[in-house]
């Protein structure tokens, strides 16, 4: 039988336009469009690209849930056996759209999906566990390499064949632990590894521990009396009622809140949504986590120039690194634009 595949691409690859057309709403077109031709060629006779979904990157980013629902509605009439999205290369919003759509389709329609991205695309960190994401170069130059790998991965899944290691199949390591039989027993492998380690040779651990990167310190504030200081907290202090519905753990968003004219945080105005500690103390007096009261006093006394009139809040509890990084980047950008000179980040 010939499998029915639907291909998802953004407005740019559909030839509709660039940034100026990024608000293009979802649309389903019969047959192949743009890179779909190469995909069809790679799929050969086993599968046919029956339709191409097109959606503007901004549209998807701004109406994510709506876009997914709409697209799934559009898809259902085509009874697809699989979805191929992208490649998105290093395009952030396009990557997020491919990731979110594949994730939703695989969960709701229970059909195989595959997408492709540059490893540093922020969507990779978020979706790698749930999806097979083919590794590509950072730009469309990598199209020729990526398409055949995507085709092979989707066909293997459709045929129920087991997928091999990331490097064999060309997908980005998902971080899933899979049981295997190796050719030597554990004890002998351990002795081999120790001998290599003792000799200073390269060895490969079979269970990698998480690693952390470093940043050189930013330069000091020269004139504190004129400096604009911002407060940021990972302790989950939000206005009462949690208007942005920030999650108690594994947060996928952060909040930006005004403290203009506010002298003090009280149980009536603010609370914590952080799920990683006993909230009693912070709820009784949110200043214990986000020290607005004293910051205001010091501002008045001239200990520093001024307090930025917004603060940012996240929940540091179980939040995926990719999100934390993304929050950090966005907050950094906003603070820079607001001419903030230094940040006090409080954590619980």
């Amino acid at each position: 039988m010939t499998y029915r595949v639907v291909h998802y691409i953004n407005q740019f690859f559909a030839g509709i336009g660039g940034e100026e057309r990024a608000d293009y709403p979802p649309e389903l077109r019969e047959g192949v469009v743009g890179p779909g031709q190469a995909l069809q060629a790679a799929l050969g006779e086993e599968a046919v690209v029956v339709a191409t979904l097109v959606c503007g990157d901004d549209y998807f980013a701004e109406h994510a849930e709506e876009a997914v629902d709409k697209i799934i509605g559009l898809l259902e009439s085509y009874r697809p056996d699989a979805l191929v999205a992208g490649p998105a290369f290093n395009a952030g919003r396009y990557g997020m759209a491919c990731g979110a759509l594949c994730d939703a389709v695989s969960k709701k329609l229970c059909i195989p999906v595959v997408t492709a991205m540059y490893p540093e695309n922020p969507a990779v960190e978020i979706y790698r566990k749930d999806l097979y994401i083919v590794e590509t170069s950072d730009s469309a130059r990598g199209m020729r390499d990526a398409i055949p790998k995507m085709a092979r991965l989707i066909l293997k899944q459709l045929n129920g064949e087991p997928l091999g290691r990331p490097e064999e199949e060309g997908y980005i390591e998902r971080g899933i632990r899979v049981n295997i039989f190796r050719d030597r027993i554990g004890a002998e492998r351990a002795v081999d590894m120790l001998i290599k380690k003792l000799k200073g040779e390269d060895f490969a651990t079979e269970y990698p521990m998480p690693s952390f990167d470093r940043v050189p310190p930013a330069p000091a504030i020269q004139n504190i009396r004129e400096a604009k200081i911002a407060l940021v907290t990972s302790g989950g202090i939000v206005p009462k009622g949690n208007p942005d519905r920030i999650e108690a753990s594994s947060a996928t968003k952060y909040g930006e809140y005004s403290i203009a004219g506010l002298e003090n945080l009280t149980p009536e105005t603010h609370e914590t949504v952080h799920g990683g500690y006993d909230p009693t103390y912070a709820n009784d007096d949110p200043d214990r986590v986000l020290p607005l009261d004293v910051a205001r006093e010091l501002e008045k006394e001239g200990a520093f120039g001024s307090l930025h009139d917004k603060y940012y809040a996240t929940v540091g509890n179980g939040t995926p690194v990719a999100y934390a990084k993304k929050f950090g980047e966005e907050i950094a950008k906003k603070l820079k634009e607001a001419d903030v000179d230094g940040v006090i980040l409080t954590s619980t």
Partner: protein
Amino acid sequence: MKELERVGLPTVHVCTIVPISQTVGANRIVPSVAIPHPLGDPTKPLEEEKAIRRRLLLKALEALQADIEEQTIFGN
């Protein structure tokens, strides 16, 4: 926090568990009181609690003005 420093914004991390702050790569660290109340102490009277908060914030401002080359802890 690393992203803030990356764009050149000096950032001081006020947190209780210094080793964790160190592992996540904070450069300016001010140790605080306790996890559920980093800048306060409910066992103390209000005035004293505020004094603790004040001391921590002043320490944080000092940290922001310090020229450092590597991870530094601004303790008592």
